[in-house]
């Protein structure tokens, strides 16, 4: 009898412990997701009212060239940004040893990860400046006449990718280092006895045993890249000033488009449809990655 009462007391305490958080998550996160899904089927008037419009937003979206461009840009940025993964693996391998200064190197690689993205974007805007930027000055020393990176449609997206890789490298590196430290030292000792050099050990032991980590990092970075906003907002601006930049069609991302529709032109039903599409893309790409992992990920 007392045991049953104990169990009820325990459950009641558990609900009491969870209640404040559950309430907040329900009001500010769970319910909003359902509302956004509903809004994507509505049309918003100038004064905030909205009415059911069926699939109109989705039909409009499918024919909107701006949506198409934003999707192409976002996905290109995401795919090109994956170059950060092999880079991070190489530097993690170089840092995965006992030597002086490892901590310092690790800190330096990690600094961009914690730096405010707005500040990062400002600094890079200045580095990319066509007339006075450091990058073009260095190029001029080699006799190259650098472009106006972020205002030139052919280089703008590439310039964004460089910033993205620079800011995420340290994060990926930390995850890979943790993964490498979990590989038993005996494997390397056995390989060394068999006469395998460091490069062979890296390719035959580290790389395959690291594939679960690489899978994880690729899932996380794809999800993150698909939501790119801060960099674009500072590099390109938004609204009318952004559209004045000839490279803007190459810079606008899905989330930047969402911001513009939801809070600049106040076309919130359409904006909701845009993020619903983003949700579907993220879900589809993540699912595809899980499907493909069988082909290349080795679980020990």
């Amino acid at each position, binding site marked *: 009898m007392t045991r049953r009462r104990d169990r009820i007391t325990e459950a009641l305490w558990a609900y009491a*412990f969870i209640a404040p958080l559950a309430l907040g998550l329900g009001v500010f996160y769970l319910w909003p997701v359902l509302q956004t899904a509903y809004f994507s089927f509505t049309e918003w008037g100038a004064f905030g009212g909205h009415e059911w419009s069926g699939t109109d937003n989705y039909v409009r979206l499918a024919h909107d060239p701006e949506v198409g461009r934003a999707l192409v840009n976002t996905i290109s940025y995401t795919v090109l940004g994956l170059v950060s993964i092999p880079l991070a693996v190489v530097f993690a391998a170089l840092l995965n040893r006992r030597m002086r200064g490892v901590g310092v190197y690790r800190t330096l690689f990690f600094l961009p990860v914690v730096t405010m993205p707005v500040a990062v974007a400002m600094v890079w805007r200045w580095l990319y400046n066509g007339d006075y930027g450091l990058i073009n000055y260095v190029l001029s020393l080699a006799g190259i006449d650098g472009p106006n990176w972020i205002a030139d449609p052919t280089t703008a997206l590439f310039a964004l990718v460089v910033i993205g890789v620079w800011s995420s490298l340290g994060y990926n590196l930390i995850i890979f280092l943790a993964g490498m430290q979990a590989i038993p030292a005996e494997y390397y000792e056995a390989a060394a006895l068999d006469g395998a050099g460091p490069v062979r050990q890296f390719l035959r032991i580290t790389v395959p045993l690291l594939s679960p980590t690489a899978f994880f990092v690729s899932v996380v970075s794809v999800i993150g890249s698909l939501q790119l906003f801060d960099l674009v907002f500072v590099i390109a601006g938004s609204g009318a000033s952004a559209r004045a930049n000839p490279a803007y069609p190459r810079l606008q991302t899905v989330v930047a488009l969402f911001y513009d529709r939801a809070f600049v032109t106040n076309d919130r039903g359409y904006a909701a449809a845009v993020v619903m599409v983003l949700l579907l893309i993220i879900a589809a790409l993540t699912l595809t990655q899980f499907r493909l992992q069988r082909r290349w990920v080795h679980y020990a």
Partner: protein
Amino acid sequence: MRRPSPSRVLLHTVLVAASLAMVAPFLWQIVTSLKSLSEATTVPPTLLPEGRWENYGRVFDLLPFGTQFRNTVIVALARTAGQVLLCSLAAYAFARLRFPGRGVLFGVLLSVLMVPPQLFIIPQYQIMSSLGWLNSLQALIVPGLFSAFGVFLLRQFFLGLPLELEEAARLDGAGPVRIYWSIMLPLARPGLLALAVLVLIWSWNDLFWPLVVNSDPDTMPLSAGLASLQGQFQTDYPVLMAGSLLASLPVIAVFVFLQRQFIQGIAQTGIKG
């Protein structure tokens, strides 16, 4: 004395070159922040600036920098304290207490974790607007007090803690509140600290939400304030560099001091936000 092997020298050369590439933007930011506009726009660029420290003062003329700094600190501390408390309470229940619906509720929590945050924004904005909270610090703080990620991280941490102390306390007649407060929280300090550092940094750096709810410069955090300078004062890069340095320095300092906890938190959960 042992001479370093050639491979060691090569290794350090590669690492020094790479870390130089990583810090070069920061160095150039510092150098530029100490130049006058005319010095910043001379070709070839000067490496040693003339030392225009007044650029840092001018940041305070362009922006209500002091107010925005205070806003950022208040919001970051409130969100951190709130998340650490609310998430640790819920995480303890999920990790240690038995109750009907535990699996389902945790599943719902995980699904919130997987939704891209942009899906919350429009309804959250409407809630803030109907409460009359637009352009207020509450708007920046309140939704950020709750986090599915925080519960997930701390639950994993609690699950890894030994059960013995708790059982001993239970035999002594301690209830869930006592156990949570005087046994779990002290044991979980590294986990709580990891969550705190992560929340502090995300909150400090966040741009999207402040941009949406607070358009009045006096209620903006530094991220939004700084972003508002872009376009307006496009040409005065030295002052922009000084401002962005001032805005990002506190978080860099926190990171350098609490590096170990932060990196552990990331390596364990793999999530940076």
